[in-house]
């Protein structure tokens, strides 16, 4: 077991390295650089920028350096000093910006994941037990519709409904009066009031896939002989299903939980953008769009590290459960 963990850890190192290179590379793909976006930004605010000043700045920021030089500067600073660099756009250290938002991002992500499972797992179980019933069609139909509505639209429409019918302003994760207050029960309540739209929009969109997998897993289990045996012994149907098949079909979800991490960040970007949530999504989006390299690179790297850790935990959990995995047979 220890050997397995050690091997997996060693595997993670080249993965992280390559991810960091790819992340840094992708960020630099678009034409122009941060300064040109900065000029554009200032102009959109009505200011004129003298282009001769820009050249001087470009040299100062080291923006003209070749890719490898920039990458090397960046990655060594992170590895040896824990310094993620300075965000061009915010003129603040990247690590501070990320730490500011990481907590809320995880809260949103986990709340969403939880919500999705609470809805989707029972729905999946129902779909498997009542296969081809009207109920199943309705469930999968609803799941598909939730998946199919572009979530920027769903977020806007829900926000509008909240405004038009309840006089309630959505947007942000806190009301202004709570935003800068210290944590309190009232503030948590306020957070929950703002959290429901993004959780519903992102969460429902994810249900279809989970319903589908849960249904398939359970169907497979239900056809196994032990289920028949249990039935034959006269166990009540509810117990027959709940005792083993459901639990076994849940295993794959628990053991692949690590894979959900990049999706947590993916899922929220657009909705968080529409609703102006103070999470990582919008930060990443603006960083990418304005080519704020260190910020975007830092976020991507953090996500990648979280993913690798998550996968590692999943794999270890799986290996603990299933010896075949440990010995590389599966």
């Amino acid at each position, binding site marked *: 077991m220890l050997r397995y963990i050690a091997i997996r850890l060693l595997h993670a190192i080249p993965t992280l390295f390559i991810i960091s290179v790819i992340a840094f590379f992708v960020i630099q793909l678009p034409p122009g650089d941060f300064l040109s976006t900065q000029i554009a930004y200032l102009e959109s605010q*009505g200011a004129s920028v003298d282009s001769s000043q820009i050249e001087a700045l470009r040299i100062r920021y080291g923006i003209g350096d070749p890719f490898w030089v920039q990458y090397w500067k960046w990655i060594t600073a992170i590895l040896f000093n824990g310094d993620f660099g300075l965000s061009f756009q915010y003129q603040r250290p990247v690590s501070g910006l990320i730490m500011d938002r990481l907590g809320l991002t995880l809260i949103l992500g986990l709340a969403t994941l939880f919500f999705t499972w609470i809805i989707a797992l029972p729905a999946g179980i129902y779909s498997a037990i009542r296969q081809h019933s009207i109920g199943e069609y309705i469930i999968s139909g609803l799941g598909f519709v939730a998946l199919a509505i572009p979530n920027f639209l769903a977020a806007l429409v829900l926000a509008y409904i909240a405004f038009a019918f309840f006089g309630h302003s959505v947007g942000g994760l806190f009301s202004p009066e709570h935003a800068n207050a210290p944590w309190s029960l009232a503030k948590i309540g306020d957070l929950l009031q703002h959290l429901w739209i993004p959780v519903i929009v992102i969460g429902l969109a994810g249900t279809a896939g989970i319903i589908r997998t849960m249904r398939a897993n359970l169907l497979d289990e239900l056809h196994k002989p032990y289920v028949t045996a249990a039935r034959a012994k006269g166990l009540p149907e509810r117990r027959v299903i709940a005792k083993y098949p459901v639990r076994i079909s849940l295993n794959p979800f628990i053991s692949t939980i690590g894979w959900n991490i990049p999706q947590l960040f993916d899922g929220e970007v657009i909705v968080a953008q529409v609703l102006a949530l103070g999470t990582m999504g919008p930060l990443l989006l603006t960083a990418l769009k304005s080519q704020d390299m260190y910020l975007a690179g830092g976020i991507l790297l953090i996500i990648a590290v979280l993913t690798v850790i998550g996968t590692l935990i999943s794999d270890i959990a799986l290996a603990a459960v299933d010896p075949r995995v440990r010995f590389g047979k599966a």
Partner: protein
Amino acid sequence: MTHSPNTRTATRMGVLATSVALFLTACSGSTTDANEDAEGNVPENTGTPDDVMESPMLTELVDSGDLPPLEERLPAEPMVMTPVHSEGQYGGTLKRAQADAQNRAITESFQNAGLLEWDWDAEEPIASLAEDFEVSDDNREYTFKLRDGLKWSDGEPFTAEDLMFTFEDWLGNETTMPFAPFWFSDGDGNTPQTEQIDELTVKVTFSEPFSLFTKYLAHPGVSHQFIKPKHYLSQFHPDYTDPDEVDDLVKEAGFDAWDQYFGDRDNAWTNPDRPVMGAYVVSSAPSSQSGTAEMERNPYFWKTDPAGRQLPYIDNIQVQVLEQDSIDLRAANGDLDFQANFLGYNTTEVYLENAESRGYNVLRWESTGTLLGLNFNVSVPDDDMRELFLDRDFRAAFSQAINRDEINETLLGGLGIITQPTAPEGSEYHIDGAGQNNIEYDPDQANELLDGIGLDETNSDGIRLMENGDPLQITLSYVENNTFVPNTDAYNMVSKDLKEVGIDLVLRPVDGSLYAELRGGNDFEMSGTNVAEDDWDLEPVWYIPTAANSHSAPGYGAWYTSGGDEGMEPPAEFKELMDLWDDLRTAESDEDRIAAGKQIMQIHDDETFIIGLVKLPFHPVIASQDLINVRDDEPKFSFYYGREGITKPELLYFSSGE
């Protein structure tokens, strides 16, 4: 007259002493007079008893001994502001929103403090932090005398020392300012001579006349940059503090170089520690994840109302950072107390619909800088195309081929204003009847003109052929924007109209940063953008290619800034524009300056270098029904006048007191 930008200093020094010395005194109360005729259902000042001279919030602090009494906080001669409607009462929190955390426009509107400020009509710069100022009759020497007893928001005195710090250690420092900014330049990239006369007086001497300096000092986007707290910022400046110590601070904060950290500390919007002179102090910065900034009143603010009560009336401002749709919804829900910036014209209908039920008014301020325009790149590298763009008949035909009424009818329901780019009525550079040349829709005339300049052959699609046999295809680069006039739709209609006269206009919506790159690289054929109209002299690049970021001639702009070393030599008509601009900038009198400006406008009107389409009829402003002293005389909403700042926000108050 041939011209080299390097010899711009050799201006008409001969005409001296003819202009009268300008000595402006900003005495108390002279700031407001336009509002006396403001009438309407304005409630009487109900709340404040005569003996309450400061906010109760501050009285508490004074009583507890945390703050000196009012007399010690105010300067000897406070600036007295007359409210538009009525004298107010203290208290309340003004709620606002903005679209991104970095945007510090709000500091220019609500926290602005400069040596000078705009008068009520935004026409004349008047004394503000300066008690009075003097301009030599050749526009070269500027003397500013500060009010006595001014204090920073942390209670430290504000003196000429602070100004000298800005002049010498920031504007004059090669690291912080590698090039002199255009608003504080001798014309050759150097900063002017500065000199401290006494504790309260400084003198700035330019080597050539600089007629626009007072305007820049009143322009809220520029004026605040001169006001830096030496006592606070010098601790981050290696000329004042041991460089190693500064270095440690810089490293600790995660910055690479001292000037970056200096810039960070100097940003009053994101750094709550930085003392300010404006009406409000940021108490909680916007960039954290909470996305909400808070500002509170500056206890040392140096303006009072006519009764001598310290301004501002409102205690706090709260700014939420939101996305456009959320801002629109909050505005429509009455959650914003006073907002004009970041509101989209297109959502006005929704604001109006909900105004009454949710307790706010929608005012219509004069819209500026929203005229949708098309710029020919007259310095385009392609010789044939450039020749065409430089042909007045071609430009006239292009303009006449566009059915502006249809664009206006479709996109603005016919409410928009159709004009060619020019200084509008009320501007000092306005010429009667300007802006109407070649504006009528006349495709026949356009066809005739195009035939007349040799574009009489067409291909099978009906597109005219250029002299080299290529079809006349022009690519229009622009940044898509739907908050004002939806420009893709407008340009699409232009393209349709042009096809009728055999010109193929291809739309190319690009990202903002790419648009900037294209211009810097002189790599576009036409650009689509909003064109400045009023007070364009603060940003001449719209009408005269003075820099390589010009929207209509970056090649000539590069030539101008580099003194002829780089870029492309402009033809005579553009050299004339550049000469006139130099005349304007270095004019020794207002008459000369205005004459030069009018000539520039005249040339543009004759030549139609820039095609104007249509501009918004107004800019929507949302003000809570509870909020008093918001200007309702349709002032100009413009970056140049501090946007909402034109209503002098320190005078706003809530009739309910909160």
